[in-house]
């Protein structure tokens, strides 16, 4: 097992943001973390990455405690991309991606051919090779997001945490990102954990799904099992049903909207308001 977390509990002052969280991750596994806003997805990722102090519990990577590792050593095992990261002014895409190699070069070692090749690969994987010299603040939100993903890729870690990586991307880039995640997992054996809002994207890309509610993990299993559990409607407070779109594809969650049940046509009266 690549990563093993048990009984992970995080408190912010009086509030318990995460309690008794557990997760097991195999090499090459894609894991989606879903749940309503404030259900503890980000906290879980940060606690797993050793970025917030845990009040209780353990996280181990290949049997070694994450909390006992130095940040640089941990960064070689695990890359973490937070939600909406901020880069220094005037930093270019290439300079950002280079930072991803710090875990490997350290304080003094100069960037060797391997490092340069990895940086080029990381830029290329997100289609940013042409943008290396561009300042980040001159890019669109989607391009900037991909630059950060490149930086995480340049770390060449076997575990990749992504906190809502698709949030600011249009549907084209969302699909591109999900495909990239899939390729990384299958071709390079990278284990990916991502907090994600789109339930159907989670269902279609993830090998396993963890559902968070109020700081607890209330489901841990395969997408098919989640579809038949009836949890989604309760946790997200929606009405809907899972429908099969194709025989070998995971079911699609179809949500009920008021409009569909009691459609009211656009009348002259409602227009005048």
């Amino acid at each position: 097992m690549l990563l093993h977390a048990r009984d992970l509990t995080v408190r912010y002052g009086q509030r318990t943001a995460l309690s008794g969280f557990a997760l097991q991750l195999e090499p090459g596994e894609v894991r989606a973390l879903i749940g309503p806003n404030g259900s503890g997805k980000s906290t879980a990722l940060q606690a797993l990455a050793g970025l917030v102090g845990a009040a209780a519990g353990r996280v181990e990577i290949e049997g070694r405690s994450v909390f006992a590792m130095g940040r640089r050593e941990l960064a070689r095992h695990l890359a973490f991309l937070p939600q909406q990261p901020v880069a220094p002014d005037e930093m270019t895409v290439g300079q950002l991606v280079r930072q991803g190699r710090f875990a490997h070069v350290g304080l003094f070692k100069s960037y060797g051919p391997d490092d340069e090749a990895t940086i080029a690969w990381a830029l290329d994987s997100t289609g940013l090779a042409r943008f290396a010299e561009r300042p980040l603040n001159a890019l669109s939100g989607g391009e900037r997001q991909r630059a950060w993903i490149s930086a995480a890729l340049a770390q060449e870690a076997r575990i990749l945490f992504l906190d809502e990586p698709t949030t600011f991307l249009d549907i084209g880039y969302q699909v591109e990102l999900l495909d990239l995640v899939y390729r990384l997992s299958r071709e390079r054996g990278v284990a990916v954990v991502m907090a994600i809002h789109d339930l159907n994207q989670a269902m279609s890309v993830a090998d396993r799904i963890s559902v968070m509610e109020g700081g607890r993990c209330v489901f841990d299993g395969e997408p098919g099992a989640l579809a038949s559990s009836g949890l989604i409607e309760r946790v997200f407070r929606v009405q809907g049903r899972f429908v099969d779109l194709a025989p070998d594809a995971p079911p699609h969650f179809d949500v009920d909207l008021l409009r569909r049940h009691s459609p009211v046509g656009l009348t002259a009266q409602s227009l005048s308001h």
Partner: protein
Amino acid sequence: MTPLAPPLVAHPPARRLVPLLVGLTLLAPLVAVFFGVADLPLGDVAAVLTGGGSAEARSIILDIRLPRIVTGMLAGMQLATAGFLLQTITRNPLADPSLIGVSQGATLSVTLFLMIAVYSHDPTPTTLVALPWSWLPAVGMLGGLVAGGLIYLMTLRHDLGPLRLTLCGVAMGALLQALALGIVAGWGSSRMEVLLEWLSGSLYARRWEHAVFLAPFTVAGLAVLPLLRRPLELLRFESTVARSFGSAYRRDFSAVLFVSCALAASAVGAVGPIVFVGLIVPHLARKLARGHFPLVLPLTVALGAITVTVCDLLGRLLGGADEIPIGVVTALCGVPVLIALLRRTP
């Protein structure tokens, strides 16, 4: 693996700046040696520099001008570097050594020291005592270090971060400054002049002792900079990102803070709080480096030395016998530069 991105090298224009700045760093003190309040013929100065010259010329050059220039250059490098380090780790373009209370701590300690020295030696306020001048650099430095240390401890109690540091620094700085001002106001002696001169930041009457006092800090400070190079790059990010990239954030943040505090406190002790050098020089360096971060630090060091030398020369030449303290010159020159830089900032 597909064709490589264009190699990430320094922008050629920025690279070309380096020899230019090295040249300027050598040229500025040379010019400053030749010009001063006492009109020495150029030939005499050249003679002294080559080992000859009259006794009077030798005394003016070797005992007055050179130590002053060297002290100024060392202090300039230190203040500018300290400012750059603080601006980087706090991600605050307005940071300078006063942000971590170094200037104010030094001010308070020098004020207290002068008051105690004067009253303990001389109960009648009309006679002049020989003030313990030689103690001032050490006293100022100690005050600056203590203030920096207190602010660090206040920050450490919470999460060690840029915002917390800035808030603690501003609050502590204001308190120390108010205390110093209160003492000065209550004191009201004619010896305030001594303090005022130190407060305005001055290179007047700086001797070799001052240069010798500063040199170890300059050397040690510059020597650790290569160690801090990569940690600094990561400290430019917020802590979550920096730590994800593998930065030992708290350790590195503390180390950089300590280095900048030691550089600033020793410089302020020796020459007083020369305002604006720590604030403006890093901005100039950043403009010249054009986004190539590794160049900013060497440029900051060189420009710090040049700026102080040139500003001091201006103060000496423009003021005549009543020279203008360098702190005033840097402030007068610094404000237009700051406004010009800000105009081009989006």
